[in-house]
């Protein structure tokens, strides 16, 4: 009898200690992180809202909104933005579906190259295709110089083409995911019952994929209306909301009007986000569980085949041409006009400094995002602290909000004590973290879903404390989620423009902003050279990510948004 009690005592003590640790340490950590998320995600949004309603005397007023909706100029911007969003979404969905259909059901030999080409824009800053268009067809572009013809790329055609090229990959990934998750037996079965390929599309594939297609369409719409770079570069005489907000801030420091525009931009984004989070949640006909298998090749009839492949080829050609033009532009004196090979664009001006700053900011953002994301995931999944819903919600808000809004929000929130960080590099880092933390958290959560709790119980059972278990068991197993979170945040931070452009102090340099400004000034050589460096570094990261995804079976790029 006494031996049992004796044996039992240290175990019980250990248990007690573990319980105390579980309460004290993670709770303190959790509170700290929640405070951080509130300050860096919720406060900027609230500041934007407050500023849009702030009266001169400190009260609340709707007069700014009245001004916005009363002015023909802003209404024009609003309609333009909505038309742009609708048109781009329609094109992206059509092309994305055709590409995803070919990649999941088309000839096997075609699948990999088509997929690689489709995803190529992921590694580029979102305005790269605008840049390429200007080099080719701009006022001083080489078509104008060589042939003496002006092609009308400024205005609708340019903005739409550039946006379609920029946003197609994300939509493609979502549609591909949906099409892959449809049980191939359903299509076989329909075919067996007499359905031709158009019947198959009409009665089986599109209805079953519709929730996923709707999600992809909503996301594309959100990206298109919030995009800053392409409309600013190629808009010509057309006005759009995101560039307007930028002008309000930089041109006349009209923070009220910039806030109103932000709120207008924020409404569809939030609506889309809420729709995805609540209404569309669970509304999927995912009919294959687990990793989708590569489906059987289908024989596609000649008419459907042509209808599918022609637009896809046009798209791929445009992507390839854009990259080609950018690379040519980087290595020649003045592409199309003076084709002397040169490396001068790579060393001229302050380009290399800008790249270096970007790398520093992105590294910092990536590291913190990965640490915090994995830590949050662990707190959510393995302790008594019931915060998962809240944490996922608030980080996804940070992810879903237009960059423009987050940029303006940061400008408003952190330009006076106690948090006077406007103009520093820290504000950029914090902004990137807030915007991309959701992905790190999601990677951690899904990884922890795969790790059975019994592993940790076994470790505890063998005498390890909570911290030892975390260090020896959980951390090694979660390393892939950590790397995924890091790489994604790093990549996005390197190329994102819309928030950064508000937060970079004059005199400071950040690659994406620097390239954009040089492009707007018509300094194409430097823009191209810096783009090449940026693309190369991001491509390396993406390659790492995909390696990781293959090794661990994680699906990082099919972000749940």
């Amino acid at each position, binding site marked *: 009898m006494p031996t049992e009690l004796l044996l039992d005592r240290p175990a019980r003590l250990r248990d007690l200690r573990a319980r105390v640790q579980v309460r004290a340490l993670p709770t303190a950590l959790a509170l700290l992180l929640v405070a951080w998320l509130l300050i860096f995600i919720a406060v900027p949004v609230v500041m934007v809202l407050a500023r849009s309603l702030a009266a001169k005397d400190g009260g609340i007023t709707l007069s700014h909104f009245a001004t916005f909706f009363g002015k023909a100029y802003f209404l024009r911007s609003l309609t333009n933005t909505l038309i742009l969003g609708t048109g781009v979404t329609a094109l992206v969905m059509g092309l994305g579906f055709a590409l995803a259909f070919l990649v999941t059901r088309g000839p096997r030999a075609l699948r990999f190259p088509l997929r690689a080409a489709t995803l190529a824009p992921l590694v580029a800053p979102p305005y790269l295709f605008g840049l390429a268009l200007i080099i080719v067809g701009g006022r001083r572009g080489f078509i104008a110089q060589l042939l003496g013809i002006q092609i009308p790329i400024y205005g609708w055609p340019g903005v739409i083409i550039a946006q379609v090229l920029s946003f197609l990959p994300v939509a493609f990934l979502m549609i591909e995911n949906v099409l892959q998750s449809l049980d191939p*037996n*359903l299509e076989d079965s*329909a*075919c*067996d*019952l*007499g359905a031709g390929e158009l019947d198959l599309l009409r*009665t089986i594939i599109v209805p079953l994929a519709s929730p996923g297609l709707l999600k992809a369409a909503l996301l594309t719409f959100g990206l298109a209306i919030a995009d800053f770079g392409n409309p600013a570069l190629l808009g010509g005489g057309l006005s759009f909301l995101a560039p307007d907000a930028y002008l309000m801030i930089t041109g006349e420091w009209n923070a009220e009007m910039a806030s109103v525009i932000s709120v207008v931009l924020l409404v569809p984004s939030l609506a889309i986000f809420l729709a995805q989070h609540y209404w569309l949640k669970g509304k999927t006909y995912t009919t294959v569980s687990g990793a989708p298998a590569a489906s*059987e090749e289908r024989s596609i009839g000649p008419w459907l085949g042509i209808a599918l492949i022609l637009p896809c080829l046009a798209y791929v050609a445009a992507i390839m041409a854009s990259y080609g033009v950018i690379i040519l532009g980087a290595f020649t004196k003045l592409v199309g006009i003076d084709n002397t090979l040169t490396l001068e664009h790579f060393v001229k001006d302050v380009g290399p400094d800008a790249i270096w700053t970007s790398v520093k900011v992105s590294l910092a953002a990536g590291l913190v995002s990965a640490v915090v994301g994995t830590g949050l995931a662990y707190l959510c999944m393995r302790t008594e602290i019931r915060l998962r819903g809240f944490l996922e919600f608030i980080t996804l808000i940070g992810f879903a909000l237009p960059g423009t809004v987050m940029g303006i929000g940061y400008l408003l929130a952190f330009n006076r004590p106690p948090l006077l960080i406007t103009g520093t590099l820290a504000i950029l880092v914090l902004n990137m973290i807030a915007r991309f933390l959701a992905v790190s958290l999601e990677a951690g959560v899904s990884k922890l879903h795969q790790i059975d709790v019994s592993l940790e119980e076994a470790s505890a059972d063998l005498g390890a404390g909570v911290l030892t278990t975390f260090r020896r068991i959980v951390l090694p197993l979660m390393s892939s989620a950590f790397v995924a979170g890091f790489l994604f945040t790093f990549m996005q931070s390197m190329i994102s423009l819309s928030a950064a452009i508000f937060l970079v102090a004059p005199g400071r340099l950040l690659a994406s902003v620097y390239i954009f400004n040089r492009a707007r000034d018509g300094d194409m050589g430097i823009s191209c050279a810096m783009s090449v460096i940026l693309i190369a570094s991001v491509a390396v990261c993406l390659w790492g990510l995909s390696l990781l995804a293959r090794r661990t079976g994680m699906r990082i790029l099919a972000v749940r948004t």
Partner: protein
Amino acid sequence: MSNQTLLSLDSLTKRYGTVTAVEDVSAAIRRGELVSFVGPSGCGKTTLLRLIGGFIRPDAGRVVLDGGDITALPPNRRPTAMVFQNYALFPHLTVAQNIGYALAIRRRPRAEIARRVEVLLALVQLQELGQRLPAQLSGGQQQRVALARALSLQPKVLLLDEPLSNLDADLRVQMRAEIKRLQRELQQTVVFVTHDQEEAMSISDRIMVMYQGRILQVGTPSEIYERPATAFIARSVGAVNFLEGVLTNGTPGQATVTTSLGTLAIRSVAEGVGSGERVCLVVRPETIRLGPPDNGMGSNRVLGRIVSSMYTGALIRYSVGVGATRLTVDLYDPRHTAVFREGDQVTLILPEDPHLLPGTNAE
């Protein structure tokens, strides 16, 4: 049932890379019969079924249906219909829409579709459930819907791919009877794929045993069970004892085989096996009788000792040691027959008409 061939498979071969899934398979399926492809997973039975359905194209060979070559036809232009292992019911359509799908695709009038769906629902006894979605049905009901849907076009051949494998044991037996009833009622030609030999034996008119992409033997269930062509087939359709020996006397009527148990008398000898050749006796556990050790005299009696026993309700399965040999013996209806304990001495009475394979068990 006529003996006329409806579907013939003519030297079909299908390769995936270096793996040959189906190798030079020829077979004839008669009008109105239910034929099973049986074999372990990976033996090519599903591939063969999908070749018949047109979901995959053979690398060589032909599929001929009712005299016409259908090898090049896609599934939507073949008069075959398949029930998939997971049923493949369209999750966004109601039961009635699922069943009426093939007719709707052919733009038949609504009223006609509705009438036909009613008849099919009645056929599978689901009259009340036409407006449900597949997710609201039990596994057995989904199975019935899949059957009704496949029958909607009155296919010349109905293809069933392991249709019962997702059901609970008792429901499986029930659906087996149901499929048999439908098949008889409609005089439907059916090709049935299963890895479950018992299922195949109970439902089929004929069985085709497959292994490594080839058909090893074709026969009625009793032919396959009682006269398997190889030891592999014998093993794959139930428990079996193999007794290796030498045919010491090949004269019909007085034939004997000398085995490790002694010399056994057998009534008939397979053709082509002569005296002095090695043979292997295939002895099913239920054909051996057990008695007390002093159980009189007679041929084919040997003494053994019960090594272990396993009670399963309908029977007791004994493992009996005779010298170094172990025999499996099934005693049915344990309540009304002698029950032995481990260690008991017993007399085994071996059958005089075992199946005889040439050569040894080692194949």
